[in-house]
């Protein structure tokens, strides 16, 4: 049965809240925003049809406050909630609470979220369905001695990983026999702190792997398709920085094979909604199931660009109970797309986050460029949330042209007031290994010297900087002497258009 959704609460903030509301608006669906105290001036509050405050800045008092969000959902009489990514998007309890209240959760069932959230259960489910997983253990390990035995049997190097894990926490690479016990204890203690569960499992370590994921869509009637792969190997500390599709190492045969396994993985858990199957791929193109993300991914726009489909709209249609209209054989990759994530961070200073006031912003425009952002001139990026400012997505018929376009778009992108990683992203586009498509998850580490090289050309622009500062100060003091700016009138544009006006009138 298809139940048309007419009003959606977006339980998120930042660029993804806006991105979801855009699709809702195109579908004629009303949107409800929720916001924490520091987000009153945020763009998602202004873009939505309705907006409700849900508490103080810390996430656990607002964006993670299930009961408060349910309360707003009932008050504003929405049919459905979209959780975005992060926050409550993979929270089975929240999903269940929505069901209890008769509110559609735009995502999979709580059971699937639970199954895929526990890495060991996910591994064994995949194994049963014939999806290749990284060789390792598939039961909960608690006895340290047994773990050491198993590691010796698998053979070093191995990864010790937390079963409840995610985001690189509770994870240790073991390369030497002498490190086994200390790494095991380290992983356990970190997992206990982060997830309240010190269960671990062991995986064979895949040397120089590629991180490649498949976007899948499944409806509530058992139909599942994939929208091809995304190459996500450009990472820093397990954080993706640049993604692209197609992957430079992909070929049609491998795509077909991995795609079929991705579909099998989704079918194994009766998955519905949009989801992502992550694989590790080694240099010999062997691939292994890594994990499944049961939500929208940050990098979904590159898939949208090459396939043409609006993934958020597909999520909503599936949640309404519509059968999938896209057939696998219709899915093509038209051209090449690259996404770069713009972070508010100081790349010259150990990538320290850089919240603060955005004094000026110029977004790149033109052919093949998409920006998904949420900040504007005068917006104060709060220190309470993720440092991602926006995502810059470019596309072109070929990978080379897409890289050239990305360089052009990064050149046009100007954000002042806060520090950003734009220069660092430009260096990635200039990096020979990236240009040749010859990279894996060690790319950033291997190219650190190139990527963080200091600016040798800096000195030649010194005089330019000096002159401009001098002249600005000179005009400022001159104006004060002439008594301008003391009239109380808004003088924002007046001064630097005065000369123009004079020219025009004479």
């Amino acid at each position, binding site marked *: 049965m298809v139940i048309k959704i007419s009003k959606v609460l977006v339980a998120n903030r930042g660029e993804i809240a806006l991105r979801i509301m855009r699709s809702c608006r195109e579908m004629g669906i009303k949107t409800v925003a929720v916001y924490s105290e520091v987000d009153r001036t945020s763009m998602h509050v202004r873009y939505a049809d309705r907006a409700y405050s849900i508490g103080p800045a810390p996430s656990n008092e607002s964006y993670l406050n299930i009961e408060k969000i349910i309360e707003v959902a009932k008050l504003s009489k929405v049919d459905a909630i979209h959780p975005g990514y992060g926050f409550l998007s993979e929270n089975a309890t929240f999903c269940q609470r929505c069901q209890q209240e008769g509110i559609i959760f735009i995502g999979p069932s709580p059971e699937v979220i639970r199954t895929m959230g526990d890495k060991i259960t996910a591994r064994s489910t995949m194994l049963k369905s014939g999806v290749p997983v990284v060789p390792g253990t598939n039961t909960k390990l608690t006895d340290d001695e047994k773990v050491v035995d198993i590691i010796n049997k698998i053979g070093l190097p191995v990864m010790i990983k937390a079963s409840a894990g995610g985001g690189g926490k509770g994870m240790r690479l073991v390369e030497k026999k002498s490190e086994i016990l200390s790494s095991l204890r380290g992983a356990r203690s970190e997992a206990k702190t982060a997830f309240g569960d010190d269960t671990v499992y062991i995986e064979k370590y895949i040397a120089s792997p590629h991180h490649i994921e498949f976007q899948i869509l499944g409806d509530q009637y058992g139909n599942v398709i994939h929208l091809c792969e995304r190459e996500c190997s450009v990472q820093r500390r397990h954080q993706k920085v640049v993604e692209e599709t197609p992957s430079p190492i992909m070929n049609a045969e491998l795509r077909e094979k991995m795609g079929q396994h991705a579909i099998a993985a989704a079918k194994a858990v009766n998955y519905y909604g949009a989801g992502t199957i992550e694989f590790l791929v080694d240099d010999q193109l062997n691939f292994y199931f890594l994990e499944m993300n049961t939500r929208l991914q940050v990098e979904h726009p590159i898939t949208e660009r090459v396939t043409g489909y609006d993934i958020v709209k597909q999520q909503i249609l599936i949640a309404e109970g519509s059968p999938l209209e896209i057939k696998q054989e219709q899915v093509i990759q038209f051209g090449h797309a690259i996404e770069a994530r713009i972070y508010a961070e100081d790349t010259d200073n150990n990538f320290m986050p850089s919240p603060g006031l955005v004094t000026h912003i110029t977004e790149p425009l033109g052919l093949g460029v998409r920006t998904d952002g949420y900040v504007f001139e005068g917006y104060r990026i709060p220190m309470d949330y993720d440092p991602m400012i926006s995502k810059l997505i470019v596309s072109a018929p070929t990978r080379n042209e897409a890289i050239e376009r990305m360089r052009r778009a990064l050149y046009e992108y100007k954000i002042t007031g806060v520090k950003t990683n734009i220069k660092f992203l*430009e260096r990635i586009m200039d990096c020979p290994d990236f240009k040749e498509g010859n990279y894996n998850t060690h790319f950033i580490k291997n190219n650190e010297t190139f990527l963080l090289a200091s600016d040798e050309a800096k000195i030649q*622009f010194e005089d330019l900087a000096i002159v401009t500062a*001098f002249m600005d*100060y000179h005009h400022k003091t001159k104006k004060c002497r002439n008594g301008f700016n003391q009239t109380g009138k808004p003088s924002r544009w007046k001064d630097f258009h005065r000369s123009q006006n004079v020219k025009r009138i004479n």
Partner: protein
Amino acid sequence: MAMEVQLDERLAKVELLAEDGNMITIKVDDKVYQLDLIQVEHGVYSVLYHGLSYNVELIATESPKKYAINTFYHSYQAEIIDAETRYQRARNAGNEFEAESTLVSPMPGKVVKIPVKPGDKVQKGDTVIIIAAMKMESEYKAMKDGVVVDIYVKEEQIIDGNQPLIKIE
């Protein structure tokens, strides 16, 4: 009109030789430039020099004499050095050690933990304060051996960028 401008490590002597609307002749140290310089947006200047087109962005700071500057790909800190500034600099010259004794926050954030208290002896490199911002915690270390003489912030406190945190002597 002549003044000095401090740009990062460099101290440059600047003299405005002529000004006619946005056409200026200006001397930086020994080099004379003829430029067409105009503010085109709030804080954004367009500069033409022998036909070359440059864009310079000035970011105002709390002091009208200090700027953060972005050119093409580069960032600078600038300060206008006039008589007043020179006088203040001279006065503070004796206190330069003072400035280096105080740990200052490089970014806004929230104090997570201060594992030291006034009177504690610390060694260079010891963590003295942990600050969280944007889902990331950063540890700040003592810049020298010494004794914690003052702590200006509290745990859980929200701090600004450039705020003094701890003084070590």
